[in-house]
């Protein structure tokens, strides 16, 4: 073709075009090599649109093929081809290759702020946050207008570097130029990282005012209120989150777990069913469903659910703890022992697990080890009170009694009495009282002396001892009543974590 066609006037080139029989435009390598000998130069970026279309349609293989043809034609010096190749490599997880290609792009088009931003993104994904921040600053210099996205990304870098103040500053800048819920969420994360739930709640409240229909923000806010112990507000926030998005798993799980703590197992199970549609592989949900069944006393279903949770997440100490508890309840002491030891191996600072382990060992007829476990549980409970000390020591006393160590049992029972005496505000469960009195009566028959014999019975004063018939499964044998107390613990120990 001739070259005079570069004047903008349309020319009647009928004759020229009709000579299209000759097979030009073949992009074979041989042709490419000899291409510059032809009169007309091919534009380096005349196939960018094709690369772009294949890229957005996710036809990455075809796209790469065209890119490689283009790079061969241009000795690797095509900015857009390299750029898309970098993005494809990134989506394939080849971070370093992606970064290298972007560096080539930057060399070819040093003024393109977008390339610099992508380089920063690659550095960010590679975990080189310091370098990423430098790159973002460079991008800002190339592109003068204040950019919400860049500030947000820089904030995220600082957040990962745990430089919370700088992160907050950048998030604020980002919010100033454009209000996004992502930036609000990052701000709240910063606040949580600073251990200030109140501040995080404040930020989310602001976000809810701007985005009143965003289910994500609403459910996060609800969960935060739950953590802060404001269950009433939490419930209303989560309710509105579900109203806007009935399938939001986070809000639904939070509501269900709340229902579960208030012993409304049927409602909770109905909610979990909904969640199960979207996330059937969540160990936490299976765990909670299992504990719901436990609350409803459907033990086989409960074991099934917990075993699935355990299968999905074998290293979660809470699931193992619950499994141990359940097996203890099913009188499968040998299995309970295994689950509880596994749980302790993963999280050795939970006094409650040690107490359950002690009960299991006591039933396995190894009183010395049971005593060790109880001692450990009491030690841990002093540092960090997670178990009701009355129940703990009472269980200890019952176990000793069952193994006929009456004098030690007496000591422990006196200890229980002292705890109740000293801590005036302690609420004692009815069942615990019942057991306390049974053991006491039995020991009294063996002529042990109790400090509360003389004065009015501290424990029963005020509350009338419930008639024996109302206590479910009340048995004359102490052995079984120990179970009962453990059972009470069990229901109190539903696992409301996961949110």
């Amino acid at each position, binding site marked *: 073709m001739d*070259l005079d*066609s*570069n*004047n*903008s006037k*349309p*020319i*009647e080139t*009928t004759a020229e*075009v*009709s000579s*299209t*029989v000759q*097979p*030009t*435009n*073949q992009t074979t390598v041989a042709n490419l090599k000899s291409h*510059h*000998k032809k009169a007309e*130069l*091919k*534009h*380096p*970026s*005349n196939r*960018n*649109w*094709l690369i*772009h*279309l294949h890229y*957005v*349609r*996710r*036809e990455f293989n075809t796209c790469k093929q065209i890119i490689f*043809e283009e790079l061969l034609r241009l*000795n690797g*010096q095509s*900015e857009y081809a390299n750029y898309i190749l970098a993005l494809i490599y990134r989506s394939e997880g080849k971070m370093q290759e992606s970064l290298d290609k972007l560096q080539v792009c930057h*060399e*070819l*088009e*040093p*003024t393109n702020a977008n390339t610099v931003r992508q380089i920063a993104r690659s550095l960010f994904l590679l975990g080189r946050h310091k370098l990423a921040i430098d790159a973002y600053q460079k991008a800002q210099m190339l592109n003068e207008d204040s950019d919400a996205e860049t500030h947000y990304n820089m904030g995220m870098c600082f957040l990962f570097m745990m430089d919370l103040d700088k992160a907050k500053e950048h998030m604020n800048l980002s919010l100033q130029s454009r209000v996004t819920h992502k930036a609000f969420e990052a701000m709240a994360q910063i606040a949580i990282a600073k251990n200030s739930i109140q501040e995080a709640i404040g930020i989310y409240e602001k976000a809810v005012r701007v985005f009143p229909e965003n289910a994500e923000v609403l459910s996060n806010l609800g969960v935060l209120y739950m953590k802060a112990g404001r269950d009433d507000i939490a419930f209303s926030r989560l309710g509105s989150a579900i109203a806007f998005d009935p399938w939001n798993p986070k809000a639904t799980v939070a509501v269900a777990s709340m229902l579960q703590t208030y012993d409304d197992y049927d409602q909770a*199970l109905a909610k979990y*069913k*909904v969640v*199960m*549609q979207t996330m059937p592989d969540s160990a936490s949900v299976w765990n909670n469903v299992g504990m719901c069944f436990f609350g409803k006393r459907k033990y*086989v*279903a409960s*074991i*099934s*659910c917990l075993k699935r949770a355990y299968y999905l997440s074998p290293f979660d100490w809470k699931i193992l703890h619950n499994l141990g508890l359940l097996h203890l309840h099913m*009188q*499968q*002491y*040998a*299995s309970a022992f295994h689950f509880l030891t596994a749980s302790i191996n993963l999280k050795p600072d939970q006094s409650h697990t040690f107490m359950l382990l002690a009960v299991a060992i006591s039933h*396995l*007829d190894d009183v010395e080890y049971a005593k060790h476990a109880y001692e450990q549980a009491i030690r841990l409970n002093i540092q960090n009170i997670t178990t009701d000390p009355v129940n703990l020591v009472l269980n200890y006393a019952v176990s000793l009694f069952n193994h006929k160590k009456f004098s030690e049992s007496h000591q422990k029972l006196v200890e229980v009495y002292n705890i109740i005496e000293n801590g005036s505000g302690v609420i004692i469960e009815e069942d615990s009282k019942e057991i306390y009195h049974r053991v006491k009566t039995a020991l009294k028959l063996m002529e042990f002396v109790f400090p509360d014999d003389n004065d009015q019975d501290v424990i029963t004063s005020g509350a009338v001892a419930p008639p024996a018939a109302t206590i479910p499964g009340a048995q004359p044998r102490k052995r079984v009543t120990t179970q009962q107390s453990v059972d009470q613990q069990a229901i109190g120990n539903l696992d409301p974590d996961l949110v």
Partner: protein
Amino acid sequence: MWLDAFSDTQATIYTFPNCVATADLAGDGDYRLIIADIGTGTIPSKLKIYKGTGLQSEVTLQDVPTAVAPMFIDNDSPRLPVITVGTSEYIYVYKNLRPFFRAVLPPLQINSVERDIWGQYDSEETLFELLKNLRSQIGMSALTLKSQHLLTLPQHERHSFLEAHKGTPLVRKNIVTCLSTLRKSHNEDDALACLVIGTENCEIFVLHPETFTPIDEAKLTLTDVPVFLSTAGLFDIDYTLTCTTRSGQLLIGRRGWVSPLLSLSKPPVGVVCLDTSIIVALMDATINCYSDKGSRLWTISAVSPITCLHRVQLRQRNLELVAVGLHNGHVSLYTLSGECTDTISFNEPISALYFGQYGRECNSMVCVTQGGSLHVKILKRSADFTPELKEKGAGAMTKLQIPKKTKLFVDQTMRERENSIVMHRAFQRDAFRMKLATARTLVHVLNTKQSPIQESVKLSAEVLGLGPSFVVRIGVMNIGPKSGVGSTGISDLALFFHWNDKFYDVSPPIIHVPFLVPSVEVKFQAKVESINPNGLADVIRVIVLRKKQAQPILVAMINMPPSEVVF
């Protein structure tokens, strides 16, 4: 709901939605299908015209077509449209399927520094260096074609390139990225129209219908390269251009004025502009509907990546739908409120979709799959597009799938309940025994030097032959305490064979190892003769000894293969 009108699985068409259109090319009311085939390295690009159930004609194109647009460029009657094809910097116009003329996009301004460099360079090296410096300041795309090509060439080809292009002028060309048409003054199907062009240099031109020159007052300059372009209104009165860019911005343009409406989270795959709303399919397989004010009305996600999007107008019924082509071979039709009303499935990913008049049937769907086959379907008169009422709570009604437990499980539970103490003790005892056995084995291994834990010598052995004669080949390597730099050689080693004399005869029974240099494997051979009449196999031990030291350094066991028996 659809009738198969015609399909050609051997069509081998490689095209995009922008390159498919229908038009009444002959003026006889029989609409032809126009497909610009991009072609591949060996197959040239072609313009294919289909009529009825077959290919009517083919025109070979000069370059890869970006988009085609049939349009009316004169007021003559009978009303015959021309086909405009955008390929790199040219717009080819075909009339009666014959080349009519071509228009060139206006060239871009050349940087004055670059012009000076080309005007007064003294040697090729300085020219190259100067251009390279210039590139690092203003970027590759701001240079002229000649400079860009020169910069990509390796050193030995530069001279011949400069020779070949000595006289050619410096030009910066523009590239077409998308095409659309805009009616000029009458809103009728066969009214005079202007061509609207998006370019690689981030501009949008409106061309004059008769002269094909850009109308200056209508030129728009964007911040990014346009990808999808659609128009509404009349050029002479008022019009709106809706355009998306490569980075995912949605822009609204009017005469000489452009503003961003919103930025999409991902680059768009297809855009359909309606009167008051815009439907955009994104790269993350979601279909989003935005109002013309930029607020999102709804969003739905498709089951597989979306490849194309096309507007479906049923004029007789006053109904509008959106057809979505998916990567899994489905074409789904959605109402404007986002409900799926119908799905057609093909056995290949969809590559291009078109809906419009073909032949005499005004409701035809054209579909090109990725493998290159072409399908035309006609909508039945009785087709019903009322979406099915979906029960929202249907999913929640399904029962919770709790894994069932067998009777065996219950039996085992009962067994454990009765015998838990015994079971526990048995387990504890066995656990202790296992620990003890492990510890003993470890001590044994350490004592007999069977494991090369702290040793500096590595042994490898292989057995060659089928028997009764074998060759055992032993490789000895000094891997040193810190193998590599700083490790020293080992001397005074010997290999000693230990075997059962009822099975084998080994010679030589002892091999002296020379000085061992670090990281070099030295190989030795020993001949093993099987003397067992039944060809049974046994183990031969290789013991590495240091001279004058009773403790072996390393012991390796060679499991011999069973030997062939000689009769």
